């Protein structure tokens, strides 16, 4: 690997790092996911800084073309990440439905209580033969 290529990859990695931590500061990505992305970037950094490590690993895994091993590891990491995101979406979906149900039931309860209070007001008017304090307040 030439020095120029290594520097380019290092530069891309650094930009990626800054981007992820920028998103974290803006609260657009969670701490947990930042850790995960940092781990991915760290693995990439290690291979750029120690390119022979990849050759050694490829020899050990009996892979004749070392970059193929790098692609394999990258694809596996990305698949893991996508799977994690899928689980998060499913969890969010369940929670969202629960919140939706709670909103629907609470809205129904509010309407029922509001109707009851209107009815209560009417009853008070009939019993007292005049407007209640609340009615007077509204008319004034």
């Amino acid at each position, binding site marked *: 690997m030439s020095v120029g290529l290594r520097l380019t990859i290092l530069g891309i990695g650094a930009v990626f790092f800054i981007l992820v931590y920028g998103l974290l500061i803006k609260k657009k990505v969670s701490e947990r996911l930042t850790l995960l992305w940092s781990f991915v970037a760290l693995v990439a950094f290690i291979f750029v800084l120690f390119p022979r490590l990849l050759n050694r690993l490829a020899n050990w895994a009996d892979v004749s073309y070392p970059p193929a091993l790098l692609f394999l590891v990258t694809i596996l990491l990305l698949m893991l990440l996508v799977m994690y995101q899928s689980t998060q979406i499913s969890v969010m979906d*369940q929670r969202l*439905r*629960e919140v*939706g*149900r709670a*909103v*629907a*039931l609470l*809205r*129904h309860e509010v309407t029922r209580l509001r109707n009851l209070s209107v009815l209560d007001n009417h009853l008070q008017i009939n019993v007292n033969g005049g407007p209640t304090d609340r009615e007077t307040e509204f008319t004034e």
Partner: protein
Amino acid sequence: MKTLIAIPAYNESKNIADVLHALKSFRTSADILVVNDGSLDDTEAIALACGVEVVSHPCNMGYGAALQTAYQYATVNGYDEVIQFDSDGQHNVADLSVLIAASAEEQSLDVVLGSRFLGDRSFDPGSGKKQVIWFFRTVIWLLTRQRITDPTSGLRLIRRRVFSHYAGFNRFPNDFPDADVIVDVLLRRWQIREVPISNTRRLQGRSMHAGLRPLVYVFKVILSIFVVVMNVRRDGGR
């Protein structure tokens, strides 16, 4: 016995009034609840005009989610049994008395299922649906050794012990609570009985099982049954 008739409805403005009028003319002490599942048409307004209780989801969340809302409502408001009734006019109001009678007759029952195959022997749901029903009948029998003739029937009476359990978070399928729920109920050793009901076709509008959806339905329910079996084994049917 405090009974709630729960009607999940999504874009059923053409059918809901007829269904509600039929239910109201049926002499029963049961309360009626329409769960409007984020309809884009006038379903909510029509149901309110009919003088029944209406709970409206803020957006469309699925048939199962609507039923779960009804279970939560019934749990909070102290109902003893919930009768699920479709909003498309497929169910015959007269069949309610069959379900209620079966429930009153056998106090140990937890679920009463309406079966279209026990009533009218000539009932033909169509070749595709017939195969799906046969498939799920077989699956239920293999898993529970119990014979259920109509695993896709939507007309069901459910007692408090069961609906209060399914009212809990993440305990009920969101889309198609059919054979998977029956398997779950049977594996938990709750008592089910099927009673004969009649069948009519939906009055107007589009079915939620139209188009390619039956295929999705089959695979989703198979997966859901798998999840049910694994979970019941894990928690010992508690």
